């Protein structure tokens, strides 16, 4: 199953800080694998060491069972889409896309056909004879994408390929990328710091922070059972509360949780305003409204309670609904939705439910 294997990858740049700190992961033969993490967490560094542009300080990388450290970058057959586009400014759009095919000595007729195909996919057909200088950032990014995909590499690395596109084109193209990847069946590693994008297209997601892996899992795993507080709050939104502000109420929420549990968390969409029939394990918390934010499709109510501040997400709010500051509310959520974390941010089981 494992096609690409990264073992204990560590990278120390000149100074003391570790850009990568013991990263191990494996990617399947036709898997769409996403690296998700905040700026500076080492995503680009990991991609570049897989592509062969930087040497790891420690650890090794295998592709299809073969160790890569002895293979020079240009023989690895790994396509890469660069964060800063790296489009060749002296070549036209179609020459850019054909560039890699020429290195592979593909016959001219095939080059033409494949380039035309790739340009159509990247919606660049109309620009084929233009020079990149006369094109927008988003268009240049798509050149980079077409150029890397057209060579059908063994592995496709994409470093935030959609970061400069508008929201609509972004959604269209990310689906397109995923469809093409599945169609030609290559392994892809995709870097983003947009959590929604990661959830939408990945087979599996790797959440990173400060050079370390926080969690690897399917989008569902990552979202519904985050293993660290970092993963929990980076993907989606999360109410994080300190234990010990209202021991009596917390006792009913956390019950027989271990003493190591120091913080607990619940997603805003799992809290509702507590009226009507509710399941048996529901907990009610009284509070007062601090702020009401109307967002169209949903509304957020920030409420002050004895356990701390809680944000409630209300789906499809009535336009007429408003809430004054200080208005009393009752918040309700199920015990099963509460997550516990220890001092270091690792997940702690809440015990029997």
């Amino acid at each position: 199953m494992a096609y690409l294997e990264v073992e204990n990858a560590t990278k120390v740049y000149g100074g003391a800080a570790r850009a990568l700190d013991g990263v191990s992961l494996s990617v399947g033969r036709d898997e769409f694998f996403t690296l998700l993490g905040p700026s500076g967490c080492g995503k680009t560094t990991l991609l570049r060491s897989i592509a062969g542009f930087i040497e790891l300080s420690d650890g090794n990388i295998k592709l299809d069972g073969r160790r890569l450290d002895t293979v020079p970058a240009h023989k690895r057959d790994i396509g890469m889409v660069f964060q800063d586009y790296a489009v060749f400014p002296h070549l036209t759009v179609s020459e850019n896309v054909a560039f890699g095919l020429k290195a592979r000595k593909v016959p001219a007729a095939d080059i033409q056909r494949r380039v035309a195909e790739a340009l159509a996919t990247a919606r660049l057909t109309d620009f084929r004879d233009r020079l990149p200088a006369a094109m927008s950032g988003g268009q240049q990014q798509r050149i980079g994408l077409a150029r890397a995909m057209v060579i059908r590499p063994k592995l496709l690395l994409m470093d935030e390929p959609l970061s400069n596109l508008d929201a609509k084109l972004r959604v269209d193209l990310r689906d397109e990328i995923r469809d093409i990847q599945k169609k030609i069946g290559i392994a892809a590693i995709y870097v983003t710091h947009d959590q929604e994008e990661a959830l939408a297209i990945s087979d599996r997601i790797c959440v990173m922070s400060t050079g370390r892996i926080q969690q690897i899992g399917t989008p569902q795993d990552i979202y519904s059972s985050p293993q660290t507080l970092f993963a929990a709050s980076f993907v989606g939104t999360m109410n994080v509360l300190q234990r010990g502000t209202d021991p009596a109420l917390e006792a009913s929420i956390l019950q027989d949780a271990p003493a190591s549990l120091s913080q607990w968390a619940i997603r805003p969409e799992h809290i509702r305003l507590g009226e009507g029939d509710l399941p048996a394990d529901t907990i009610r918390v009284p509070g007062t409204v601090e702020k009401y934010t109307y967002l169209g499709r949903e509304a957020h109510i920030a409420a002050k309670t004895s356990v701390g501040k809680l944000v409630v997400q209300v789906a499809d709010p009535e336009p007429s609904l408003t809430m004054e500051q200080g208005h009393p509310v009752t918040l309700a959520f199920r015990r099963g939705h509460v997550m516990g974390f220890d001092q270091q941010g690792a997940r702690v089981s809440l015990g029997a439910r």
Partner: protein
Amino acid sequence: MRLNFWTVVSILAWLILIVLLVIPLGSVLLSSMQDAAGNFSLANYERFFTTPRFRTAFVNTLIVGFGGLVGSLVLGSIMAFCMARLEIKGGRFVSLLAILALVSPPFIGAYSWIVLFGSNGLVRQTLMSWGFFMPPIFGMWGVLIVFSFKFYPYVYLLASGALGNINRSLEEAAESLGMTPFKRVMKISFPLVLPALSAGGLLALIHSIADFGTPRLIGRGFSVLATEAYTLYSAEIGSNLGMATTISIMLILLSMLFVFGQRYMSRKNVYHGNLINKPVKKKLTGVWNVVAHVAVYFIALAGAMPAIIAAIYSIRRTNGPVFQPGLGLDSYRRILYNLADVVQNSLVFSAATVFLTVTIGTIIGCLVARRTNVNTSSLDATLMVPYVMPGIVVGIAFVAAFNSPPFAITGTALIIILSIFIRRLPYSVRSSASALRQVSPSMEEAAISLGYSPLQAFMKVTVPLIVPGIIAGGMLSFVTAINELSSSLVLYVGSTATMPVRIYIAINDGDYGTAAALSTVLLLISGAAIYCAFRLMGRDERALL
């Protein structure tokens, strides 16, 4: 150690620097510290500091250096401010005049000033006949005036670039914070252009110290270190190499001192312009508009005046060295019949120099830009030395180093070519290194990830991107090489005379027609080279500095 390409390049680079820089400088130093019998002695230095003649020259050098600096700063800042921030009619023409001032052949400048303002100068005589007394331009003040109008383009070109790149939001922010216009200029704009001003001022200073044509022709008894060094070296009887080399060392020390001083001053001041909100040019009206235009055109025309005078005088009729009324091409005819070999020398030497600087400079530039380590940074730093060496000093140093085996090449064309090569090498290295730094390394990586080997990636991606810049840089090197006078003057023999050398000789012989015609030819060649360069890389006057 594995001998890869870059190791070989760095060894060769050091070899070049050792042969063409360290050995000549070492010889100069050695020669300055020997007495007539060849024993170690500091007598020359003692003499330097005790002889009134040398002390005066030293003080005078400082005077022309700082005088040229102040004059260039004043003229250059006025020009820069008006051109960058005000609407001036015919702006392109004005910057053309600035280029003309920059490349007008050495010596002819001084001569043209004499033609107008000398004892029998045209302008002076006219004014005198109207009853205004005007002293002739000779002496210290004359030198300072000529330097100011000759070197102001350094300040102007650098400062106008910086002024045009200040983000307007910064000034607007200051305005909205309630700063008065004067405070705004002093607190915001001035600090932002300070690095450019000090860099331009440094160039003016260094060139003022190194120039020896102007003090020689206009100084009339006002001598500076450069003229003293040349006089001592070239004296028919009792040529005193030991003293000439001592003065050379003092000149180098002075220049280095100023370079490091400027670097120290502007060590923290690196601002990166941002082109989103460029300043707009303001349109003045009324009196101030007239004042601005008069100031700009006065400075620009005065700076370009020598070149214009030379062009006019070159088509005056002559009989032998004497001008006759009316126009004619006698001077050009004389060049064609008698001086064709001089023109040919100039073209061949300059072409050879440019070929050497461009090829070698580009390769070293790649080394410096792509392999940053202790070795390459010290290479880069060492290259600063030929950058600040006055031409006279390079000439004397080459004579001191290369007139005995194993490198006995004095009197050959090679020594002239090498002397210009080593002075021009730093520019070439710098410009190719900075061209390379503009090419993002991920560009080559992209090519590598697409299956090209690193060498192929370099050839297919990087080279096409930097070649126009390199050719343009070569063209500009050609301009400097063909106008180079001071080192050639020390190194030439009859058969290797170049155009600038011939101009110097012609002016000394009173053959002004020939001098003017040769200068015009030089100017036309330089103009053609600059035109090609600008066509290749876009118009950018600052590349000329």
